[in-house]
């Protein structure tokens, strides 16, 4: 494993170049270009705001600044879903390269993580600008943003490496991922506050709900970017057990994902 990591380090420039290529190419032939990276989450925001804020009146539950609450959760969610949908198929999609050129294959899924990170940072910057513009007080936790982003990146990297390996051998994985992401989205407190889960689900179901690492990650994002009292007491959204568990789970997943990937990558060229 040490050798594999050394090899990855040697190829850091390729990772950087592929990431750059991904960023450059994504909106290359579109008129709006980079603006799309910001427009997409804003459109999602409008849709959810109208559906849940206006039609279902979640606002009635005393949710001031519901739009910001939504943004605080949607952005980190998009970070996950963007990376995962592209990263899982990355090895298969780049079969031309995998069959013809040698390089550490983990660079492929990781480059999608890289380009998604870039867009995510842009979007977070936009969120902060909006918060300032609308005079919503920033929380002192905002400085944890890089740390939290790193934690989420570790979690996503582990999952993407694992699933992209499996996808080489079972192409079902990439289709399954789409469905998984949809279900997962609603199992995470993004459009509704976590208090809904506490109040409406039986205790065992709520406990189960809290086993989802993305729940904790999104809660933390909400806590540091936009902290609403409706979201429950701070202790609920950032319990030490939840944070430690999420960190442990993310690191564990990364190790499992990385080891699986590097163990099997020698056979990729034959399978795709």
């Amino acid at each position, binding site marked *: 494993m040490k050798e594999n990591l050394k090899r990855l380090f040697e190829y850091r420039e390729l990772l950087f*170049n592929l990431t750059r290529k991904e960023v450059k190419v994504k909106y290359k032939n579109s008129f709006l270009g980079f603006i799309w990276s910001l427009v997409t989450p804003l459109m999602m925001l409008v849709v959810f705001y109208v559906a849940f804020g206006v039609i279902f009146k979640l606002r009635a539950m005393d949710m001031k600044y519901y739009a910001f609450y939504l943004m605080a959760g949607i952005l980190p969610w998009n970070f996950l879903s963007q990376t995962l949908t592209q990263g899982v198929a990355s090895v298969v999609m780049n079969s031309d*390269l995998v069959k013809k*050129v*040698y390089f550490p294959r983990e660079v492929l899924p990781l480059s999608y993580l890289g380009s998604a990170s870039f867009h995510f940072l842009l979007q977070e910057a936009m969120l902060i600008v909006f918060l300032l513009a609308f005079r919503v007080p920033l929380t002192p936790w905002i400085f944890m943003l890089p740390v939290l982003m790193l934690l989420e990146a570790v979690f996503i990297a582990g999952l993407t490496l694992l699933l992209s390996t499996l996808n080489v051998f079972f192409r079902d994985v990439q289709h399954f991922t789409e469905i998984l992401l949809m279900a997962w989205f609603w199992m995470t407190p993004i459009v509704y506050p976590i208090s809904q889960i506490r109040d409406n689900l039986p205790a065992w179901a709520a406990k189960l709900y809290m086993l989802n690492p993305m729940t904790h990650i999104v809660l933390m994002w909400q806590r540091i970017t936009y902290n609403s009292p409706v979201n429950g007491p701070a202790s609920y959204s950032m319990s030490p057990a939840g944070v430690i568990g999420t960190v442990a789970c993310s690191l564990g997943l990364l190790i499992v994902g990385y080891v699986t990937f590097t163990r099997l990558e*020698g056979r990729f060229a034959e399978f795709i």
Partner: protein
Amino acid sequence: MTVREIGTRQVSQIPAIEVEGVSKSFRLYRDVNYTLKERIINFRKRGYDLFWALKGIDLIVYKGETLGIIGPNGSGKSTLLRMMTRIMKPNEGRIQTHGTIAALLELGAGFHPDLTGRENIYLNASILGFKRQELEGIMDDIISFSELGPFIDNQVKNYSSGMYVRLGFSIAINLNPDILLIDEVLAVGDESFQTKCLNRIARMQQEGKTIVLVTHEANIAASICDRVLWLEKGVEKMLGGSYEVTEGYHEAMRMRPEGSEFGTREIVIEKVEILDGSGKKTTEFETGESILVRLHYDAHKPIDDPVFGFGFYNQMGFMVYGTNTRLRGIDIERVEGRGMIDFRISSMPILDGRYYVSVAAHTRDGMINYHWLDKLSYFDMHSPGKEEGYLAMECDITIVPE
């Protein structure tokens, strides 16, 4: 540093690529179960056959040497090359390489259509494992070698295939790797660019770079390489000086005439004998010697007015000479039972090479073939080597100085 002599060039004895007992098998899936459902349904069936692409290959490529790998399709040449680049891992044995490697397995692998030529140079070089600093100095060389000129800042998707090839080759060759692996890519590109590439390869040889070249054209291997490895069905058939190995390879390729036989078999040609002037069986002839082609036939029922003939063909399948009884004005009224026919040529004006012999028995109008043995026998011609081509002619040379 010990040095050993290969041809006219000097090659060190420091290994650049070490291949030790390498075997590689592939699973040939009868029907690849890509989806989980298929996997589960076919869980118990072992849905593949093991196919050994390479078996027990030992090889050391020395620093500064140019090694050619030849063999027919499916002999494992490309698999061996791919394992040298680490794209695939061997099942048994190990491969060690010393120094930076650039491989030309397919030109332009890894080009992104939406990026410009220049941007693709950076991307492609880093895919091959080279750093940005290493690239700065040679950027201009790459662009000028590729002859792309102003097009270098256009998106690659607008390139012609020739431009694509030139850019790919230019990158790999200008990165100046210690080891360059080339797989059948010399055949692409126009002739002037090909010559340019070969010149560049010659320069790399002088600079002491190690080159491994996979090709099924033995002539290219013979002209460029110091040594040649000949693979046949995944095993080493021969390894040695490029001339001996390519000769042997040519020879073996000739051993497989695409012979056939057909006909109604009302007359059967049971045997064809190739004899020399004294009636001794042989396949070796000198230019100018006499030859006797003897047919043994068996007519199972009486056949009226048959025609017997023969032809000599060169390796390309062109007829060099042929005739038959009808053309020679010999009428055979009827044949029944066994017999033999001799065609005697008193002097063969044919030059070096292997020639295949076809013989036939058919009707006068040629509409019905009784029996036709197509290129099933052969003989080899040897000439003193004073001329080239197929035919021996008398040639007097007069030099008249003014």
